């Protein structure tokens, strides 16, 4: 069994080397990572079965897939509780308020110079630590999770948005002035459009933070549903296949959320010099 697994590895590696030595096409760009991923899964399955690793330590992928298929109702409830109620609402509130405050701050260069270093500083702090405080204030429900997500997403978004709003150059601002543009016209026609690449960068960073915040906050207390709750209780009951299924859901959710914002980014901020090919 182990030898077989080794054989699969060598075979897959050989295929990938052959594929990589050809000029890159969209197909090989997809095929090579896919082969790599499948090989890892096959190896995982093979090694776990060959060495008879107990499933309370590492369940094989097939058991995880089976558990995923069998528990779709639980996984769906947890998904709604953690992602839709906790992460998504917190993401909207955190990023929305950060954008509004950034627009207010942008009127005063003095405040802007004060907020940028502070915001950068706060964005590097372990803000998930506020979770027990918010659970105490807002109870075990989704509201406390949304509050943690607000706290986690606010500062990265604020910093990006403040930088974005101030990224128009003097020439552009001058031309708005010669057109006698009002504050609102300058904001809508110049400042917001140039801020878009920065804003979307912030929104992308915050997708991952939102999901992490919502899951970790559930470790401090939650109703009897939610991804973080399920992970911490099922680990205690040694039902590791369900834990892994939950992690698969988290992974799919995280990367599709990020992918969605990237799609919007490509639609809106395609003109930025960093996208030039």
């Amino acid at each position, binding site marked *: 069994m182990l030898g077989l697994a080794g054989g699969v590895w060598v075979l897959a590696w050989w295929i990938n080397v052959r594929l990589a030595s050809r000029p890159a096409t969209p197909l090989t760009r997809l095929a090579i*990572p896919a*082969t790599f991923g499948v090989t890892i899964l096959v190896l995982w399955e093979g090694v776990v079965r060959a060495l008879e690793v107990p499933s309370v330590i590492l369940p094989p992928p097939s058991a995880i897939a089976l558990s995923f298929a069998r528990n779709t109702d639980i996984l769906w409830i947890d998904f709604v509780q953690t992602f839709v109620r906790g992460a998504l609402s917190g993401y909207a509130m955190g990023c929305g308020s950060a954008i509004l405050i950034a627009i207010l701050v942008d009127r005063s260069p003095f405040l802007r110079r004060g907020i940028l270093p502070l915001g950068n500083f706060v964005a*590097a702090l372990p803000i998930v630590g*506020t979770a027990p405080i918010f659970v105490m204030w807002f109870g075990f429900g989704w509201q406390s999770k949304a509050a943690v997500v607000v706290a986690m997403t606010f500062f990265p978004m604020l910093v990006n948005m403040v930088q974005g709003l101030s990224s128009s150059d003097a020439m552009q601002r001058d031309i708005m002035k010669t057109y006698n543009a009002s504050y609102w016209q300058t904001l809508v026609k110049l400042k917001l459009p140039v801020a878009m690449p920065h804003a979307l960068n912030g929104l992308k960073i915050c997708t991952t933070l939102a999901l992490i915040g919502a899951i970790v906050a559930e470790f401090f207390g939650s109703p009897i549903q939610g991804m973080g709750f399920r992970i911490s209780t099922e680990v205690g009951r040694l039902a590791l296949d369900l834990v892994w299924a939950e992690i698969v859901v988290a992974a799919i959710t995280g990367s599709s959320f990020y992918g969605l914002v990237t799609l919007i980014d490509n639609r809106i901020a395609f003109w930025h010099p960093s996208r030039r090919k």
Partner: protein
Amino acid sequence: MLTRTLLPVATVSAMVIAFWYVMVVVMNSAWTLDQAKRSGIELQFGEIVADTMQQDRPRLPSPHQVGLELWDATVAKKITSRRSLVFHGWVTLSATMLGFVIGSLLGVLLAVSIVHSRVMDMGVMPWAIASQTIPILALAPMIIVILNSVGISGLIPKAIISAYLSFFPVVVGMVSGFRSPEFMQIDLLRTYNATKRQVFWKLRIPASVPFLFTSLKIGIAASLVGAIVGELPTGAVAGLGARLLAGSYYGQTTQIWAALFAAAILAASLVGAIGMLQRLTLARMGMDR
């Protein structure tokens, strides 16, 4: 320099602290009024404000209460005491540092192999990038409990989570760092008939240094979060995460806030130390601006 950044930063900080004090009155006054009503006392506004600042278990402790608790738990307590934040901070810091060193070393190694092998680049790099959009932290409880069940507990499991979290930012940052030399520079080395190894040591490594420090900063912040979260599933044993959890079990809000600030100070000094190293190194290399 002084008036350009220091004054605005001080102003904004003062605004934050003022807002905090206002919120202290708003959030704690309900309890004060309730207590007064039970004992049948009418309170003046000044008395209400004074009381909200000095409750034993406030909903929101005031900044000076947190400051006092922080002072009490770091300087006033012996560092061997279980109630000393220095003790708990050290537990968290040692796991963070061990994990961070392992994670970033492995990250740099993987980045080297990705830059030199087309197969690794096309096969592994997409997964490394995708993994950054995944809440890896969700794995933490499982890693802790499984390792615990095979008899490994304490420092190592937390360090593994820390290593895992700092690994991917370093990989992604260093791959762009090793790729940052321009075509012209690589061409120049080719005209010198430089080997791949020489290109790596004389061009790619020096060029990647700014990227290294930037990704190390992200990595160490992630490592600290990993160590703190890694302290949650075992129950409140030791470390800043345990302090947070114990505080939330027993409703000790001031203790939670003090632990939170200790974690923030730790994060800031770690990132600050790497920033200092960055400035010194880049100045020695003549790359500072």
